[in-house]
């Protein structure tokens, strides 16, 4: 019993970053256990084609439940199909992405299997067949080490915590049964924002604005910095800014918003209240830009720049654009 199953989330017909990271983590764990990484995908017409690309990201077998009724995510149908696959297979572990979909789905599958689920895992190892996972708790103020006494070990993994693995397995797609009658709730619509942008919770680079931006009319300066940083960058916001109605709640980083761990985090005009730090302290590199040299954000920043954000932002965006252009 040494294979690891990864739930590959398909969005807009493609197995994106979340799916590839799950497969990367599954591959690492499977290798330590002497098994294979498998992928499971559930969705509407076309999902089979999107899933097939996962054989290039370490999936040795790809299980697809495709049905016309699953054009939109149907959590009960997906949970039932995944639980049946896990029960019929021989899995040491099942991994979900800690996305909106993965965090909704994982506990449904776990309850069906009667197994616990470890959320937002940031590291994972197996020694002597025992799986040990680590995760932040208390908003990152403590790190918990968890051991699974008995399988399958169910987990969701935090975005940017595990790297995708480019490994062509030649793995084939196999169909699994999905049953639309499993639905207790019916997802009837998806209202997308008008921005074609990566979500702040998953972005590799986040640019957050705080009260120091002085008003929503100045956000174009942050948008220009995001644009300079490329496709993997997203806007974030402090709670003060969201409460003031300058930005939507979906962009809020912190205790009552999203927890992010990007590779690079810019805190611009953000003072660094403890509730904000709770949402971003696990970012790999933190840059703070603030006029107030005593702002608490400088206490957690790797690099600080003291200055007027309105003066600094335009030339910073230009310099980053130039630096990336050279690279």
């Amino acid at each position, binding site marked *: 019993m040494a294979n690891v199953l990864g739930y590959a989330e398909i969005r807009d017909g493609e197995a994106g970053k979340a799916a590839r990271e799950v497969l990367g983590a599954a591959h690492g764990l499977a290798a330590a256990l002497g098994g294979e990484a498998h992928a499971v995908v559930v969705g509407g017409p076309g999902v089979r084609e999107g899933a097939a690309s996962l054989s290039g990201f370490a999936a040795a077998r790809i299980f697809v439940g495709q049905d016309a009724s699953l054009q*939109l995510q149907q959590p*009960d149908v997906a949970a039932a199909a995944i639980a049946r696959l896990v029960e019929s297979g021989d899995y040491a572990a099942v991994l979900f992405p800690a996305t*909106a979909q993965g*965090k*909704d789905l*994982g*506990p*449904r599958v776990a*309850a069906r299997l009667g197994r*616990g*689920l470890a*959320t937002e895992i940031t590291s994972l190892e197996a020694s002597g067949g025992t799986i040990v996972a680590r995760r932040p*708790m*208390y*908003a*990152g*103020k*403590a*790190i*918990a*080490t*968890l*051991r*699974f006494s008995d399988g399958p*070990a169910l987990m969701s993994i935090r975005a940017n915590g595990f790297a995708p693995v480019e490994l062509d397995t030649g793995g084939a797609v196999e169909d699994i049964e999905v049953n639309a009658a499993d639905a*207790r*709730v*019916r*997802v*009837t*619509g*998806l209202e997308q924002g008008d*921005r074609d942008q990566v979500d702040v919770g*998953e972005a590799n680079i986040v640019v957050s604005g705080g009260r120091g931006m002085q008003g929503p009319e100045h956000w174009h300066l942050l948008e220009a910095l995001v644009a300079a940083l490329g496709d993997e960058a997203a806007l974030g916001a402090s709670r003060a800014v969201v409460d003031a109605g300058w930005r939507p*709640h*979906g962009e809020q980083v912190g*205790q*009552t918003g999203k927890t992010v761990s990007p*590779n*690079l985090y810019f805190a611009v005009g953000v003072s660094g209240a403890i*509730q904000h730090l*709770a949402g971003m302290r696990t970012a790999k*590199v*933190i*840059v703070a830009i603030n006029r107030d040299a005593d702002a608490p954000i400088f*206490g*957690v920043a790797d*690099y*600080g*720049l*003291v*200055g007027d954000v309105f*003066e*600094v932002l335009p*030339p*910073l965006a230009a*310099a*980053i654009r130039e630096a*990336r252009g050279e*690279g």
Partner: protein
Amino acid sequence: MNTIVCIKRVPDSATRVMIASDGTSLDPAGVKYIVNPYDEFALEEAIRRKEEAGAGTVTVIALGPAAAAESLRQALAMGADAGVLLRCEGSHDSLVVARALADEIRGREFDLVLFGKQAIDDDNMQVPQMVAEFLELPCATVVVGLEIDDGQATAKREVEGGHEVLEFALPAVVSTQKGLNEPRYPSLKGIMAAKKKPLEEKDVSLQASNIELVSLEEPPAPAAGRIVGEGVEAIPDLVRALREEAGVL
């Protein structure tokens, strides 16, 4: 409409976390406890619906130590009708907590079970979905909009970059997110009235799950950062540091 709201007593987010000598729990000394902030949206929703309908009951259930009775009193002061404390010590995996809550809820008369979307101590975001599975009920999570008409519900749930719209029949389980409503503060009258409202306490014993908490540690202290410089002149140094030292550009 009869609503059950499940709440949790958690350390205040501003609390300084100290690991206890057992290495697997928090040192409770000096910790201020609050009702989990997301649970306040669930409480507000239940109380508001009851007030608007002029009928129905709001029952609040908490699982936790004896001191969690304080959290229930607070919910009663906001306007809930009755409280139930499932008393047990220690922290427990979501699966066994969900089983105990489902066992308590099963057999009660209800239309809706509300939770906060997650507790701010373990940040698990699991118990509502698991309770729904154990009760075989529809479940919508991270809900920012909820309309109910003649036993049919439409919920709006937050996802990356937008919202999903879900439809389901009651009874159902819903977990609430910021944006659904503005929770009220208990009034003085509410606080006085809460003292006379029924609060039932009973002991529960939870089995272990297959996940064992081996240790809890403080995170490594962040490497000391540095101020690169002041104003526009510091930009070249900042960009160079991000490229060459940090390797993130």
